[in-house]
């Protein structure tokens, strides 16, 4: 999940009908996809009665809702969000990161004390940012606001964390696949999630850059906007490959891994 400046707030502040106006298309695509992915994981969790898929489902649902609602003022014919709606969507966003943090810890570091500490730190940062936004009637996404930085850390750290854990797991899984202990499809899913973490981290950095550029440099804003949109679309693309892999992709993974392990599932 990437938190970025509310497009409505941005446009309202800057009064620019520039390329950001088209950013709602990216938000619509990303939001819709996250909702579909969430529904799929929710169905899976109801079948398996396991927590990891449920955590991921809630996280995707919160992300999807955030994109669909926070950017709605940019949809043709839609009105700006009320302060209450701004606060509510910020809390949906903030609370949505919690299950993601718990997912990472549960899957990769269930016994680790430092992982638990990181979950707490990120959680506190998110809540602190949420409280500040509530107090002010919406999050001030500018670099001068220390609470923005605090909240930013709360959602940027999990993006870095999932990327690192998935990359490490990919390395181990590749070795396990060689002796038949890991299916090629699973190995590939680790790699995809590592890329997802990478794109999300990049997008978070672009969001920070954007907050920094609260001044006059339009070129930087346009660059940050394009980078954010590109990273989000790339993230959605990676998740699509992870959760809805087309037959041709599965076949490609199977062919690439032929001879080093069992066939991928699905």
């Amino acid at each position, binding site marked *: 999940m990437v938190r970025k400046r509310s497009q409505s707030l941005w446009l309202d502040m800057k009064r620019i009908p520039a390329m950001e106006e088209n950013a709602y298309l990216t938000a619509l695509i990303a939001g819709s996809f996250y909702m579909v992915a969430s529904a799929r*994981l929710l169905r*899976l969790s109801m079948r*398996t009665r*396991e927590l*990891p*898929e449920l955590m*991921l489902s809630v996280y995707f649902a919160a992300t999807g809702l955030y994109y669909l609602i926070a950017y709605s003022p940019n949809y043709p014919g839609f009105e700006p969000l009320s302060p209450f709606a701004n606060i509510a969507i910020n809390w949906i966003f903030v609370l949505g990161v919690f299950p993601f943090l718990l997912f990472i810890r549960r*899957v*990769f570091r269930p*016994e680790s004390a430092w992982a638990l500490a990181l979950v707490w730190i990120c959680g506190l940062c998110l809540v602190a940012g949420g409280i500040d936004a509530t107090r002010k009637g919406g999050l001030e996404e500018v670099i001068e606001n220390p609470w923005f930085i605090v909240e930013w850390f709360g959602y940027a750290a999990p993006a870095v964390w999932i990327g690192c854990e998935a990359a490490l*797991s990919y*390395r*181990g*899984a*590749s*070795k*396990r696949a060689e*002796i*038949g*202990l*890991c*299916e090629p*499809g*699973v190995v590939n*899913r*680790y790699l995809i999630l590592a890329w997802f973490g990478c794109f999300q981290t990049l997008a978070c950095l672009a969001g920070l850059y954007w907050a920094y550029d609260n001044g006059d440099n339009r070129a930087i804003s346009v660059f940050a906007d394009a980078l954010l949109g590109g990273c989000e679309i790339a993230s959605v693309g990676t998740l699509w490959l*992870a*959760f809805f*892999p087309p037959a041709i992709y599965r076949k490609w993974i199977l062919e690439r891994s032929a001879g080093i392990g069992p066939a*991928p*599932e*699905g």
Partner: protein
Amino acid sequence: MVAQLFDIAAERLERCTALDRLEVRGTLRIALKRAGLDPNNLTVEQLRAVFEQLMPVELENRGVVDAVEACGTAMDEIACVARESGSTSALTPDDIFKRLGGG
């Protein structure tokens, strides 16, 4: 039980070879690293794959004769101990990621 599996494996392997405790544990750690496995989060199935495919070579490199037989004997004993203790395999990230893909 999961954390103890490494210790049990090392102990049984030590009995089946002429290597001392330190050598056995070091060799086992190297084999597990080559297999991409965490000594603190092992399952019997994972250990079996390592003992069948990697460990014999590692032991032969350290001068153990009949390494395949030693590994087979040790693995049978490990599986027996694991069964008696009623241990179930811990859920690994691989299991979760397999599920997430619908597998």
